[in-house]
């Protein structure tokens, strides 16, 4: 999305809804929390678009998303108790074989549960990088930290994940 373009609320919902949902799901491991976050973010975007000044739209959007997520965490004051297996959800893509499904579910469960064990800052950086697909600069803007800190958090997050994963890489 170009820097001088202000999208409508519907554009944001259609274009970023899935990314926001997946970001939230991977941070929380909980589809209900992810759905709540999407609603909250879209509400904030709708209110905020009137005062949005064309600039880095992605940075603006992900700051809103992150703040909404953190506000939700503070409100609930609890960590997710368990993550549902990925196989229970409607995912995108073609239909793999049953063995592939089983392997994929086991691996993604392992990765998801390991993600949830990371300190929040590391988990957030890894998810924004590897799930959402932001650059280090965009993550730095969204999380309000220097790029060097982003780089460090992503690496430390991956290093801890490596130690936590039981599935052979």
């Amino acid at each position, binding site marked *: 999305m170009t820097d001088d373009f202000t999208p409508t609320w*519907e554009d944001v919902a259609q274009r970023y809804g899935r990314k926001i*949902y997946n970001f939230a799901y991977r941070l929380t491991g909980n589809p209900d929390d992810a759905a709540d976050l999407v609603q909250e973010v879209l509400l904030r975007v709708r209110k905020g678009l009137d005062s949005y000044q064309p600039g880095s739209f992605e940075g603006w959007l992900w700051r809103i998303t992150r703040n909404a997520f953190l506000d939700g965490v503070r409100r609930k004051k609890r960590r997710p108790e368990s993550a549902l297996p*990925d196989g229970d959800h409607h995912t995108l*893509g073609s239909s793999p074989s049953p063995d592939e499904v089983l392997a994929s579910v086991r691996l993604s469960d392992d990765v998801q549960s390991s993600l949830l064990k990371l300190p929040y800052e590391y988990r957030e950086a890894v998810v924004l990088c*590897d799930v959402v697909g932001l650059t280090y600069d965009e993550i730095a803007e969204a999380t309000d930290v220097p790029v060097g800190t982003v780089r460090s958090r992503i690496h430390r997050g991956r290093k801890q994940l490596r130690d936590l994963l039981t599935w052979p890489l």
Partner: protein
Amino acid sequence: MAPLIPDSERRGELFSAYLDGQLAPGEVTEVSDLLDGDADAIAEFRSLMGVRRSVRLLPEFEVPPHLLPDGHLGDRLSAYLDGELVTLEHRRVTRHLVDCSDCRGGLQELDRARIAVRSLPGVDVTTTGEMSAVPAVRHRKRFIAGGIGAAAATALLVGLALGNSDQPAFSLDDLGSRHVARASAEPGFAVLPPSMEVALP
């Protein structure tokens, strides 16, 4: 004096950033040197690559449909009719109307309701305090300026409502002249999609 970041930590950061394509130009050479014949470094690089891949391969979920708008124009239809949308938004709505028969139908209904309301006689209060009806045309005068855009929108709608023989024939020339009038009154107003631009004399 010890370095700020331990060598092992820096090496891992460089590998991670390299995998993400986020290194500065000089650092690429550094990564290449680190990997040159160092089995430990190569093992670390591979393990980080595996972790990164496993996170990136996590399945992507569909958003539950009820969380997203249905993609229709909703309350923007009224704003469109009233000529209240800014240029970019107006073009976007026009494009949507070309493809969406549901929204065209909605726009037609809104337009009929709008015309019915605007056709109501106005009310004047006499010096004795009694109210009396005045011709609708007086009541409607104040809508004329803003109504040019609405008329243009309506004309466009008529043109878009393919196969609807109850509606008057759509004329691009007529639409163009209305839009030129609106554009003259309001500099910067551009309601025509690029494919329907009318050359000014």
